[in-house]
């Protein structure tokens, strides 16, 4: 394997791993709140978190430019204070993957939390355990497979992220060219050999993750 291919593979795995870590850290508490709490605007919050699932990646990329660009709503302050912008770095690819793949974990995990038998939760309360302890000792262990399945799906989606990533991290060889971007470059420059290798490798990796997610999903059903 040539070094550029290895770089793209390593970068894609790095971006997807970091994004998935953030998705689990933020998505699981969000899914818990959506599944277990009642408050005004809950379904609007759910809609906002789910929106990236149906929006074209270019729209998400545009929103991220508006937010994080050097002159963006948040980006201008970051640039003003540090002289650094997240744009066109691999961190931007992580943010794009995070936003696009987060809904998959939230949807799967919320469903897993909602499927936990309410009587088990009530039993935990009557045995003297707080909501916090019940969440860790009863709800999370029983929803574990759903959470893992959601994380695997999110990882696979983060690996495949292209549109939003291209818009905010660019396609800089040796810096931000993740596998989907490298495939695009290889195909558009007529390097069929490189494109074929990348596509086969990518299909194999994504297929394995989907297979794992399906197996986990079947177990929780």
């Amino acid at each position, binding site marked *: 394997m040539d070094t550029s291919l290895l770089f793209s593979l390593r970068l894609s795995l790095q971006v997807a791993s970091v994004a998935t870590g953030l998705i689990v850290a933020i998505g699981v508490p969000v899914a818990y709140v959506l599944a277990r709490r009642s408050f005004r605007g809950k379904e609007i919050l759910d809609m906002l978190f789910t929106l990236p699932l149906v929006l074209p990646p270019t729209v998400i990329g545009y929103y991220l430019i508006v937010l994080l660009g050097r002159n963006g709503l948040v980006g201008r302050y970051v640039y003003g204070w540090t002289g650094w912008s997240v744009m066109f770095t691999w961190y931007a690819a992580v943010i794009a993957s995070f936003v696009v793949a987060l809904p998959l974990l939230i949807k799967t995990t919320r469903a897993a939390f909602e499927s936990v038998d309410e009587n088990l939760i*009530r039993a935990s309360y009557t045995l003297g355990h707080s909501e916090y302890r019940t969440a860790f000792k009863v709800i999370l262990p029983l929803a574990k497979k759903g959470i893992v399945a959601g994380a695997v799906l999110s990882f696979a989606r983060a690996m495949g992220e292209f549109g939003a990533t291209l818009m905010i991290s660019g396609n800089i060889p040796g810096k931000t060219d993740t596998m989907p971007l490298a495939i695009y470059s290889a195909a558009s420059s007529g390097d069929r050999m490189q494109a074929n290798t990348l596509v086969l490798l990518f299909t194999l990796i994504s297929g394995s993750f989907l297979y794992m997610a399906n197996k986990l999903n079947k177990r929780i059903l």
Partner: protein
Amino acid sequence: MSLTVRVKKALDAFTLDVEWSINNELAVLFGCSGAGKSITLQMIAGLLKPDEGAIRLNGRTLFDSGCRVDLAPQERSFGYVFQDLALFPHMTVRENILYGAHGMHKDMREQRASEMILRFRLSGLERKLPNRMSGGQKQRVAFARALIGQPKALLLDEPFSALDNPLRLEMQNLLKQVCREFPVPVVLVTHDLPEARALADKLIIYADGKIMQAGTPGHVLSSPAGPEAELLAGARDRDLIHVVCHPCNCSLPIAQS
């Protein structure tokens, strides 16, 4: 030890409006399905909020709509056995029982769990998951878990409804033994005639969210005040078979059907 309940709650089909109190005895809430028995139990445990009323256990106010007191289920000190038993499927028998020993020192928890395992004849099953156990074994785990924390009262929501007659007999016997060993108020919800007759120290007959009659079984059966009580009184001895339970040799009535 006493449990006093006065609750009112508007439900879809009727308004539940009941008032009763019990001492250290086994009170059976008897009535048809949908009469409000289980809802009363949930309100006592703090799992459902009454619209108004008051619930007191040994003089301690658990709920009082007038004083705006509404203790969380965690603070009420009830042992609760659910109709489906609600054993945690991802925990072994020992872990399920230990989970009920909340707030105890670790050594004390382990010691209490071992005592419960012996008392409820669960030795050898400690490492089993609930889905690998029989209905009777699960019942015993549910009782052990509910009692390990030394609750101040025991609430039982039709715990024997899914059992066949021989096992039901064994569990009724177990409940009698529990009542002897743990002298606390016990409230049992049932719509099973022989079970109500066999176990009750006090019968509280529910119908459409109201109490039709309350009193000792002797009083209720000798002068029934409504169709539910008449039904209960009508289940005379000739309708029941007295079965001797081994190895304790106690006799309990079960329906011929």
